[in-house]
């Protein structure tokens, strides 16, 4: 029987050497590389604009009802109407909401000024709002808990630093930022598994998120050839090439099929 005990001990040691000894995956550091030249704004005199619309074709999916019964505070916040998943929101005019549109390539390699105003990500009624946001790398995100319940905010980046922090009811706002460009970062709350939000982090200011009318507008773009990407959490990315002349306004439309 001593042999059995000895075998158990050896097996356990070997197992942990193999399974538990490795370090967690290395994550990107918060600090950026050596700073480049001073931030420069776009040349306003020649700036072009790209506007457009993201439409949805095919059968409109029925939004799924979220079951918030695990937390009465969350359930009470939606006493009037049952909460619906925001995974696919098709507007009344057949356009698609919550699509992140950004200039994926072609933007001049320079240091674009980072806005000093943070972008707000609220937790209200145990839902993230807005469902999709865009920020520049190193721009602050103000995370607000407007609920009378605990939330935790857990972004799942692949390039940036992952973190997981709790925020008590009506707790102090959190200011967070991501150091590197990453499209998209999923954010979840492990306390409330239905809560999902997506953050597009971009090195420049040329991005937008579609709203209730499914349109987007990207202003201040230097003349040139670009690839625009429209990203949707369920239907994935779609790319379109576009060339803009000085002061030109161009229209680019996207279509996602259900």
């Amino acid at each position, binding site marked *: 029987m*001593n042999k059995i005990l000895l075998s158990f001990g050896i097996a356990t040691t070997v197992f942990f050497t193999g*399974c538990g000894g490795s*370090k967690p995956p290395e994550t990107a550091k918060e600090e950026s590389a050596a700073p480049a030249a001073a931030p420069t704004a776009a040349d306003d005199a020649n700036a072009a604009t790209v506007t457009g619309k993201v439409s949805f074709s095919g059968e409109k999916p029925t939004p799924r009802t979220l079951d918030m019964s695990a937390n009465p505070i969350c359930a009470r916040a939606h006493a009037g109407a049952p909460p619906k*998943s925001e995974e696919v929101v098709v507007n009344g005019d057949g356009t698609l909401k919550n699509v992140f549109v950004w200039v994926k390539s072609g933007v001049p390699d320079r240091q674009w000024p980072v806005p000093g105003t943070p972008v707000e990500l609220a937790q209200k009624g145990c839902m993230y709002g807005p469902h999709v946001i865009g920020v520049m790398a190193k721009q602050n995100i103000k995370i607000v808990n407007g609920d009378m319940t*605990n939330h935790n905010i857990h972004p799942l980046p692949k390039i940036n630093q992952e973190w997981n922090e709790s925020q008590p009811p009506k707790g102090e706002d959190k200011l967070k930022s991501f150091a590197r460009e990453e499209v998209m970062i999923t954010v979840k709350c*492990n306390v409330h598994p239905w809560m999902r939000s997506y953050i597009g982090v971009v090195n420049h200011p040329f991005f937008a998120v579609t709203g209730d009318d499914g349109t987007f507008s990207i202003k201040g773009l230097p003349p040139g050839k670009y690839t625009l990407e429209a990203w949707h959490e369920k239907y994935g990315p779609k790319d379109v090439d576009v060339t803009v002349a000085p002061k030109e306004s161009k229209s680019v439309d996207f279509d996602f099929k259900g």
Partner: protein
Amino acid sequence: MTNVWLHRYAVLWSFCTLFLVVAGGLVTSNDAGLSVPDWPLSYGKLMPPMEGNIFYEHGHRMVATTVGLLTIGMAIWLMRAERRRWLRNLGWTALAAVVTQGVLGGMTVIFLLPKPVSIGHACLAQLFFSTTVAVALFTSKSWSRGPRVVDDAGAPPLHWLALATCVCVFLQLALGASVRHQALGILPHVVGAMIATGMVLWLSVRVLMRQTGHDALRRSALALLFITFLQVFLGIAAYMSRLATAEAPQPMPVMVGFTVAHVAVGALTLASSVVLAIQVFRNVRHPLAEIEPEGFAVPSA
């Protein structure tokens, strides 16, 4: 002479550990692993509000604490009341395992679910449960009656077959944990299921055909066979329910139920293969024991 209360305590310990495995499965299936972002306290308290997924994560910690205390009690009881030194050592080994398990659980929280640690935590849980079942067997009345030694001349030796089955079942559980924690796809787990089920069938059928008159061996083989078939069914059900609810915005109860049952019956499969292996080693004469190695033969006068 058996200590009835020590055995009952060991059985209670085993049941609590199985419940702990279920509680751990609920944490993973509900994606609640990081709903409490700190450790060892929860939201800086001993008792946070049990809302949302905090119920699963903190509940798991509470059951784990109970099992930890029960393990300390078992180690001390064995040290004071048990004459078999190897069994006393097994009690301390169990205590070391449960402490390691607690530290691994804490590491999963602090380091945001690193896959090797999460998989290690899941695998050690299975080994620990088998240890509690073994202690319950060693302290039982039937064990105290002593072995009824029988011969088994088949090839390969039953002892090797029993050990190989335990190893295959454990590796299969490790593959399952790797699927759960998204380190591997489903294919290796499916192949592993075929191999492990094949080994269980080979061992159990051989025991049932050759040792059907031996109560301890027959019962252990039947238990292993039944639990394995149940486990295969639950595995298929868990996979199908996962596919069916893949589009749902949150974990669906049907998927959680089948998956957690699959995890718990997985623990029972390993434990029953360990019990059968122990019974084989105890009751079946090893064929090599009859062979006197040539170099050590006593020269005839």
